[in-house]
């Protein structure tokens, strides 16, 4: 497969959140501020990319029947290692991202990609798939966060954007708004893909 296509597929046609509809919990939980969204994407990358590489490298020795507990062990180990290393060497950053690192362990995109891609493909392709999924996940997270934070708090990445007189709409930073925003983006992407298909 074309290497660039692996990345592109994970970003648009097979976007993990908008098309495959997995990893929704974390998107709803952390997309109420741009800073949280960026940090979650960073934490996600720290686990998704190495997990994909390790699962791919070991795919020939992993028996099919017990692949899921092995994927879980690898992902949980990488999550803990990422948490320990960032706490020890990047403590100031860790104090902000600790919540997101711990959330990564239950992110089903990571186990989904280990199962659907890394277990079937080579190490380099799995590495690219990890990058593509991180970008695809991050773009959705940040796009939703921009709208939710702006309307729900009047700020962007903590910087006041709306005038002082603006009354923030609390609903936007609460979970229901996350679902609404995902619904809108799914609709927009589906429409775009169908129109593109129609033109062909």
């Amino acid at each position, binding site marked *: 497969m074309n290497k660039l296509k692996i990345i592109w597929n994970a970003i648009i046609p097979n976007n993990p959140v908008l098309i495959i509809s997995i990893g929704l919990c974390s998107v709803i939980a*952390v997309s*109420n501020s741009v800073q949280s969204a960026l940090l979650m994407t960073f934490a996600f990358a720290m686990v998704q990319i190495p997990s994909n590489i390790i699962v791919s490298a070991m795919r020939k020795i992993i*028996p099919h029947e017990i692949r899921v507990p092995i994927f879980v*062990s690898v992902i949980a180990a990488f999550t803990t290692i990422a948490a320990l290393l960032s*706490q020890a060497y990047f*403590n100031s950053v860790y104090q902000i991202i*600790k919540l*997101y690192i711990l959330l990564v362990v239950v992110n089903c995109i990571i186990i989904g990609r280990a199962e659907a891609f890394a277990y079937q493909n080579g190490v380099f392709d799995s590495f690219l798939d990890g990058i593509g999924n991180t970008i695809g996940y991050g773009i959705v997270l940040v796009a939703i966060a921009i709208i939710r934070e702006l309307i729900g708090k009047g700020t962007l990445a*903590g910087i006041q954007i709306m005038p002082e007189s603006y009354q923030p709409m*609390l609903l936007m930073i609460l979970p229901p708004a996350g679902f609404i925003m995902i619904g809108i983006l799914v609709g927009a992407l589906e429409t775009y893909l169908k129109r593109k298909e129609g033109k062909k």
Partner: protein
Amino acid sequence: MKSIVKFAITLGLIAAITGFALAIVYKITKPIIAAQDAKALEQGLSEIFPGDYEFLKLDKPITAQDPSVQITECYLVKDKASGKPVGMVSRVTVPGSQAPIEMLVGVKSDGSVSGVKILKLNETAGLGANADNPKYYVDKKNKITFLGQFIDKNVIKDKLIPKQDVIAMTGATITSSAVSKGVKVAGEAMVAYLKEAGQ
């Protein structure tokens, strides 16, 4: 039967490798993390009581009236010049909405709060996690943070209840109540100890 043994060996091997990798990383990072925790504690104590004070750790922490508020460490604050005790700081753990919240609460001998600093917080991002956000103001006009509003409140005279005499964080009532309760209960216990000790 043969495949079960094979699966058990494979799974055991993977668990051993990941466990070994975790043990190595833990061993390397443990002293660094412990040193950072000690530094954060030291910094927290001097933030709560800024000035020329010494902090004497009590052999046994005091007990709070409310069992949900746990006091794990206590420090008697003494003025270096006169040697007189001026207050107390405790490391307090309260149940938050997601996980226990660990914080330092400092009170002066007259019962007024000298400061509150959060050491561990795992509350909801964007809501309860704002408890220790230095840019999140509960009073935007006067630029007062959630923890900042406790300074100079009196743990004996004030109720320290959100939406009464404490401004709650938007959408984070549980976290606001937990922190307020920790300050009130631990503060009362510290003032009682100071009074009993004649300080």
